[in-house]
């Protein structure tokens, strides 16, 4: 079943930069789609459009509903977004408050929330981090707290922007495992093509305002000509 359908969307930033033009694609329920492309290709902007944080033209249909001003709050309840920079996302002083932010409005009671905080920290490998200050954490820990906060909302769709960026090889591997354990639909933006290859069923190449290719991970990632013509490189796992 299709859970995300994008129909002919275009977006131009107010200062005139056209980020994408008439792009369309579908994501099936439970699928994990890797979104790749050079710097400035519009990957982050695409995730913003899916979450209704920018106003694109065209249609975005999530779970059968056309995204609009009216239903955006309901749509956002089904989506968790892990941003490129954890400092933008960890806005509360302590880990516990950050993870529990907004959970009450999903209908959980106080005890349930405490329980969820514990469980999601556990599933992100961060047992006992409840009272830590967000600004005293290492980057890898911050990234994992963001992931825990995303899991806490039990989303149907998980949007990840550069989750493994700047992590050491061990941290990267661990994070990839955590993401893989999440069973819902995933859209993962990353320059870490090895991770994309390991985690994603399908891959989409975004470049010069359009979708250059979309299809099975292995088929796309191992296509040397296609990859190089989009300033990308065939990842190690497919060489």
């Amino acid at each position: 079943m299709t859970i995300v359908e994008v129909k002919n969307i275009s977006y131009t930033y107010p200062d005139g930069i056209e980020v994408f033009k008439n792009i369309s694609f579908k994501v099936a329920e439970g699928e994990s789609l890797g979104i790749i492309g050079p710097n400035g290709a519009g990957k982050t902007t695409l995730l913003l459009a899916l979450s209704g944080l920018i106003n694109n033209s065209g249609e975005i249909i999530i779970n059968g509903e056309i995204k609009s001003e009216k239903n955006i709050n309901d749509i956002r309840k089904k989506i968790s977004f892990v941003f490129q920079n954890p400092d933008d996302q960890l806005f509360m002083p302590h880990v516990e408050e950050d993870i529990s932010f907004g959970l009450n409005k999903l209908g959980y009671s106080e005890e349930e929330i405490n329980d969820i905080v514990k469980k999601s920290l556990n599933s992100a490998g961060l047992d006992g981090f409840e009272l830590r200050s967000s600004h005293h954490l290492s980057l890898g820990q911050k990234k994992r707290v963001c992931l825990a906060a995303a899991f806490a909302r039990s989303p149907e769709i998980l949007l990840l922007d550069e989750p493994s960026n700047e992590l050491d090889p061990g941290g990267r591997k661990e994070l990839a495992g955590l993401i893989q354990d999440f069973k819902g639909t995933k859209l993962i933006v990353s320059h870490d093509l090895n991770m994309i290859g390991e985690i994603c069923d399908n891959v989409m190449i975004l470049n010069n305002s359009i979708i250059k290719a979309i299809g099975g991970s292995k088929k796309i990632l191992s296509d040397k000509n296609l990859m190089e013509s989009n300033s990308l490189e065939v990842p190690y796992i497919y060489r």
Partner: protein
Amino acid sequence: MRHSFWDHFSGLDTPVHRLSPGVKILFVILLVLILTILPGDYISFSALPLLLLLIIILIFSRVPVKHVVKRTLVILPLIIPVIVLNSIFMESGLSHSLILSVRSFLSIFSLVLLVSVTRFSDIMKTLSRWHFPRIMIMILSFMYRYFFLLTGEMEKMIRAVKLRSGGTGGSGIFKIYSQILAILFIKSYERAERVYHAMLMRGYDGNGGLQ
């Protein structure tokens, strides 16, 4: 990244730290109130006992005196203009200013002491239980959270300038610093937008409430 950890000692386990946050907040509010409304003559002879009281609390809390004094002195410059203006424009300017400085120093000292012996989240929780406006608690939380980030970012930029200008000041340094300030402002503005996005995704409705 180096930053000045204001709340560095708030996680200690001493009798003072274990005291209920509400009691400590009330104590500080009371103290600041007294310092504000007590007539000048009384300040001059109650200042020393008050300072002594604070220091005794400090000793019991095992927070280094240096830590609190240093943080207090960092904030004090913000008040100096007021004091200077005051001593110029008021009659009996100097003695009046002296008393104003004492009031400010002791008030700030007790506030710094409060955040050194109480976890910030406990202070916020208590204020929220006392039905403090939600929006104010949120603003305070954000100020606390992003204060570190902003000072860290500023330190990084100043270090970069120092490295590239060979460590010496020289002419044009003011221009550079004013540009740094401008960039910092733009960066904060853009960050604010991204943080706002992150909040919307978690159900924030833009009015201090949650969707």
